[in-house]
């Protein structure tokens, strides 16, 4: 079974990510039984039939507007944000908004081109589950979650910037 990082450790994962071919119409897609994460467009079209299942999550692309999933956020067991390329940073803003603006508190999962050196940034903006790309050593990646002991600026993990959290040092007066 595939593994992901959740809650700071590597665990088995049975969620299936549904990535339909681009040309296919949402109505025709066959949604498998069991835990499945569907694209936003599919959810928006077919949520009435899916919401009762309780084992259907939604994934957003970088271009998706997080406000469009807002009405269901309290009921979704998992929300994922896709990184088509690790250099595409839209997902960081999407995740931050899902958490801070739309109040999502469930599992927020990074999927796609998720590499160890991104985990720190992802964790800070609100991701708590990381589907590290399968060719990378996921246990090694755990070390990349927290490379820094502190952060200057606020984000989802701690909205309070360093200057409000610490008594930061004032200059030592000059003099001989």
């Amino acid at each position: 079974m595939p593994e992901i990082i959740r809650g700071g450790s590597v665990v088995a994962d049975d969620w299936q990510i549904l990535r339909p071919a681009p040309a296919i119409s949402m109505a025709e897609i066959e949604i498998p039984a069991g835990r499945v994460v569907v694209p936003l467009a599919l959810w928006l079209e077919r949520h009435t039939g899916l919401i009762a299942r309780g084992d259907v999550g939604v994934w957003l692309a970088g271009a998706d507007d997080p406000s469009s999933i807002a009405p269901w956020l309290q009921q979704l067991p998992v929300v994922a944000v896709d990184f088509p390329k690790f250099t595409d940073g839209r997902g960081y803003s999407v995740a931050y908004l899902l958490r801070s603006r739309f109040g999502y508190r469930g599992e927020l999962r990074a999927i796609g081109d998720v590499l160890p050196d991104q985990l720190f940034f992802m964790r800070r903006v609100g991701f708590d589950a990381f589907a590290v790309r399968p060719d990378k050593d996921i246990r090694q990646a755990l070390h990349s979650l927290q490379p820094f002991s502190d952060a200057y600026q606020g984000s989802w993990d701690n909205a309070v910037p360093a200057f409000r959290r610490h008594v930061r040092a004032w200059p030592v007066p000059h003099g001989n």
Partner: protein
Amino acid sequence: MYVYDQVDRNLVAERVEQYRDQVRRFLAGELTEDEFRPLRLQNGLYIQRFAPMLRVAIPYGLLSAAQLRMLAHIARHYDRGYGHFSTRQNIQYNWPRLEDSPDILADLASVEMHAIQTSGNCVRNITSDELAGIAPDEIVDPRPLCEILRQWSTFHPEFSFLPRKFKIAVNGSVEDRSATAFHDIGLYVRRAPNGELGLRVLVGGGMGRTPIVGVVIREFLPWQHMMSYVECILRVYNRYGRRDNIYKARIKILVKALGPEEFARQVEEEWTLVKNGPGTLTEEELKRVSAYFPAPDYRPRPEDEGELTRRIAESRGFARWAGRAVRPHRIPGYRAVVLSLKKTGVAPGDATAEQMDQVADWSERFGFGEIRVSHEQNLILPDVRAGDLFALWEEARQAGLATPNLGLLTDIIACPGGDFCSLANAKSIPIAEAIQRRFDDLDYLHDIGELNLNISGCMNSCGHHHAGHIGILGVDKDGEEWYQVSIGGADGSDAGHGRSAIGKVIGPSFKAEDMPDVVSRLVEIYLEKREAGEHFVDTVERLGIALFKAGVYGTPARTKKGPIERVVTDA
């Protein structure tokens, strides 16, 4: 200047270790070249034509003597004995080894420096006025706000994978000495009539392939909201900036596509949702950071001004240098001194390790141990007593740092160009040198007066050619190096009377060997046509480019060899 506390020290030290591990994994084959690239770039390391290039941040252009000595040490120990000061108040080393780069960063950390976010698609080094805190025309000292922005932007989790690089400049004086309008965000620090501190906010300026002067999206932003407002600009950009085409990915393209009004509306809408949050800057924090930038213990000597006047009267050479290199200071009896890194035969902006050590020594003997770096690629000693200027000049001359050409045609801004940079289409350094050699007559050079000549080896515009009164751009034509010339650009400084403008191309490009003649011809036309008090760029503005174009293309300038006949004017 700002001194690291435990928070800063920890973060920079942890960054060195993180990077060391990344280099180790890359060399072990655990990271592919594509995966390693953004990691090394965000630590300043490029892979260049011959070797890696390491770009080290000099936040808002401020250095201590100890820091400059470390830069000299790095040049000597890890490189070939010199460094290149860039137009973004960074220093670049052209010959380090990838394997050494973690050690270089550790050495930098020991003097509270780093190469964090000097490259890559993230918020870059914050740039500012090299005369901050000492300029007579200063409204507000921008350095505390620069430092606060430096911290805020460092490892920002949401904005480390932007569509493209992102540059912020902050200027707090009447004169814009930071080319502020050419930045992704330009901030002018201002005071409202009631004394309230705030910022005039520009977005979407930039050079590159699509040069644009930034537009004001907010006339006055109270200082407390600086970070939340910048956050909103970056969020709109991060979400909607183009990622499909590297040439259309800068924020200026988004601002242009949406229109500045719509862009501003989206930022303001976002801002209503985040302002007054915990990111709001506090009075306490502003005071704390400001306390790191106190006025030094100035002790002007009453006899100094008389001494300076006497020296100027006695020595023509000193007078000529002082007339260009010495800048006014807000404290009577003190001056700022610009040390020219534009000596003919030396790549513009280059300094040797020995020169860096010497400048560090002077900063202690003739000042308070502080040095500034300007976007014109020169070094500045900010606090020199008027009575010490002559002694400093004599030593600076020995060191090759007293070329009396500041603000003149040979004070050329230039990128490293095709001699080093793998992006370049053409060389910059030999063109700069050929032009400097042509204009080696100091009387003539001084008669021409204020003229910014900027050279970029490619469209990326690191040499700010768009903002040059004369701009030269290296282009590739069927594998050959050619040079396109534009005139009438201006970077917002007093040399162009405060205008920020993009230069206009005068016509088809030239071969390298023709460039001195082309520049000579442009200058001759200016000298013929100028009215009293006009700089080159003013004459271009008044007359338009057609006359200059006709003068250049309509004469045998392209084939003319040998010395150019100088035009005598009575102006």
